[in-house]
């Protein structure tokens, strides 16, 4: 027996995804194994689409940075904050085609206390030229790793360097008492 209502809902979801040329979407918990599997899927899609090697590498690089940001920083976690490996944290990633460009998006909840810091890190990148971004990248590469950073402070710079337009970000309140905001980040490659 078919359930007509479910079919209609799924059809609607499917149509929206097709209309927006979504080529990859995942929402749920992220683990390192899940990232490895998603990376396989994304690589396969990009290779099959015939996109040139330079763009493919940039897309893949930004995709991995986004996915690993979720695993490192999402405030919705099934694992202890102090655990430094094998983490499970919640978020979403999406790749779609917009006017012939690839749009990478990701989202994850962050504690309200981190919002200002993220803004202060991301906003200056939006106003830098590619040369300035590369320069900042080089300086950060040689600097000490910032405290509280599990990457190297290089993740956003890597995305900004690979993107063809300034990174876009936003924060949406989640609920009055949650203490968190939903962080959205977009890179056009």
């Amino acid at each position, binding site marked *: 027996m078919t359930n007509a209502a479910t079919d209609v809902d799924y059809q609607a979801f499917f149509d929206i995804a097709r209309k927006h040329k979504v080529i990859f979407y995942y929402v749920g918990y992220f683990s390192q194994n899940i990232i490895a599997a998603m990376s396989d899927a994304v690589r396969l899609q990009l290779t099959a689409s015939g996109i040139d090697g330079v763009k493919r590498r940039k897309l893949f*690089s930004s995709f991995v940075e986004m996915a690993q940001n979720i695993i490192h920083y999402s405030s919705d976690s099934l694992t202890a904050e102090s655990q430094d490996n094998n983490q499970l944290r919640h978020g979403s990633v999406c790749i779609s085609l917009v006017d012939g460009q690839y749009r990478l998006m990701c989202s994850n909840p962050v504690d309200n206390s981190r919002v200002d810091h993220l803004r202060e890190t991301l906003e200056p990148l939006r106003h830098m030229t590619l040369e300035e971004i590369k320069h900042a990248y080089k300086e950060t590469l040689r600097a000490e790793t910032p405290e509280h950073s599990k990457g*190297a402070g290089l*993740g956003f710079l890597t995305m900004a360097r690979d993107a063809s337009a300034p990174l876009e970000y936003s924060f949406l309140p989640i609920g009055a008492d949650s203490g968190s905001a939903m962080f959205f980040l977009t890179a056009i490659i």
Partner: protein
Amino acid sequence: MQNLLFAATPTSPEVNFDFERHTLSLRGESYPENAAMFYGEVIARLREYLGACTSASVTVNVALTYFNSSSTKMLFSMFDALNEAAQNGNRIVLNWFHDVDDETMLEFGQELHADFDAFEFVSHATTNG
């Protein structure tokens, strides 16, 4: 000194440090969940080995198809250790393998070259994707 051998995983490279033969190789992809943890041991063993080298001739082969931002940072400190050893009188050759159309790898290689001039840097452009 015991050799260091880690098999590759989908997100971490093969590490084959054959200290006896003075040949150190990294091959594969590098985006482990915690790059500081993964490379921590690699760099510690490398420093231990280099500390004991005098007038040695060391070959380092790096063939990484992709590394994420946190691995980049760790690779940089690895090359820093190699540079120090070269300044201390060892001959160190770094073979840097990168895909011919991979700008990012090429630029990173040039960065290394600019920062670390004590070792010999040999760039190899490859075409197998």
